[in-house]
């Protein structure tokens, strides 16, 4: 609790992270928030922008190869953010890399994911990876909320260690509609466009 309060305070002081609910309102409904990914502070910014009571049931998805590597990062990810780790490199062919995420969703938690899979220097997101599609298929009742993180690519571009304190806004869009029988590529492109439309 103390760690998350500290992280949120620091995030707000440095980058503002003011929420703008444009197409949806804060709601306890189970959701997957998916956003563009351009800096180290993205997760913290999105998480800080959520109301406190929603944060308790919303778990950011973090790359295990980065966040689960040393004690400090693990402490921030696990104790501060209650993160779910995901393996970006598939170790065994049989193992489902999405298993930790589906477990969290099955337990009733909401998720924050960055479908690009890695950080991107540009203001607009690149192509999305398939994870979002599979999660959406397996959990048809979970709302899919597109989120655009504005200005964060300027605050902390790749390769920098400290954010420049520019004011960042977190824009929450309308839930992505489900289209029966839509194929993977179309779905992912539509999801990406929903994020871009908020830019």
């Amino acid at each position: 609790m103390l760690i998350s309060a500290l992280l949120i305070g620091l995030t707000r002081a440095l980058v503002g992270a003011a929420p703008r609910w444009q197409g949806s309102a804060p709601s306890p409904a189970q959701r997957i928030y998916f956003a563009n990914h351009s800096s180290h502070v993205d997760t913290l910014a999105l998480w800080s922008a959520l109301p406190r009571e929603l944060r308790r049931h919303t778990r950011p998805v973090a790359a295990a190869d980065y966040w689960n590597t040393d004690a400090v990062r693990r402490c921030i990810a696990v104790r501060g953010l209650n993160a779910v780790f995901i393996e970006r490199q598939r170790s065994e062919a049989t193992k489902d890399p999405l298993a930790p995420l589906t477990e969290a969703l099955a337990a009733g938690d909401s998720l924050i994911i960055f479908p690009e899979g890695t950080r991107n220097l540009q203001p607009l997101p690149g192509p999305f990876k398939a994870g979002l599609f599979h999660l959406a298929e397996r959990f048809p009742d979970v709302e899919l909320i597109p989120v655009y993180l504005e200005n964060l690519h300027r605050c902390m571009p790749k390769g920098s260690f400290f954010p420049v304190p520019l004011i960042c806004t977190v824009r929450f869009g309308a839930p992505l509609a489900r289209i029966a029988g839509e194929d993977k590529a179309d779905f992912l492109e539509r999801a990406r466009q929903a994020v871009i439309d908020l830019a």
Partner: protein
Amino acid sequence: MSAQDKFYWLMGGIGAVLLLSSMIGWVLSRRVSGESGRAVVDNLNARIKAWWIMVAVFAVAFMLGKMATIVMFALISWFALREFMTLTPTRPGDHRALSVSFFIAIPLQYALIADEWYALFSILIPVYGFLLLPSLSVLAQDTEHFLERAAKIQWGVMLTIYCISHVPALLLLDIPDYAGQNALLLFYLLLVVQLSDVLQYVFGKLFGKTKIAPVVSPSKTVEGFVGGALSATAIGAAMWWITPFSPLQAAGMSAAIVIMGFLGGLVLSAVKRSLGAKDWGSMIQGHGGMMDRMDSVSFAAPVFFHLTRYFFTP
């Protein structure tokens, strides 16, 4: 009258004016009907409420003393620079220059004021900052729009750090027969600038016809400027008793503050327009951002500081 007594009279007067404004605002909010009228009155009341808070914050900082005042202005610079840079297009190559502006230039400039080191304080940013900031950016080897980017950062740093820091710098002036009262001079500057802004707005709303610079700022009119400037100068002259000036000198000083404040508002309005924004931010309810309130101050402060320094210190 001691400095303490003057301070209490001043706060009492400001409190009385704000109380009156709040009452007028309350009466208007009960009488007004129609969508646009309601919007204007709501904005007016939000502004009055924000004035109460701003005056309270300043009063507390002054009562806590010199260090609190300096820290408060360092924070004002921080928020103003943050707004300026948020609207200004920069590239990843400027990251180092921006970090230095926020994390080194601001603390250093205000530390020099706390240390009363006038000689370095007055050249740190215009000379060393001017040379250092583009030098940091150039190391990233991004030549795209290099001159514009360097100029934008330089302008932001000049206005939000260097110019605004001249307000607390009034504390380091050694004015004969005025020792221990410099905080009042600081209040005087802010009071005249802000009153001039408010009165220009009021006169403009009441009598405004001829626009001064419609392209830059559609709300600024000749009638508003003349009425606001004359009345703010008159009030400034009437406030001579909290300053080291005679009534006539106070009128001259106020006129200088008013004119510079007007130009500051106009120039920063043009900057805002060139960046495609209406307000600098949304920090202060009803007023916009920090820079929307500090635009006139940033132009008036250095001029007032130097006029006082040249004519009233040995």
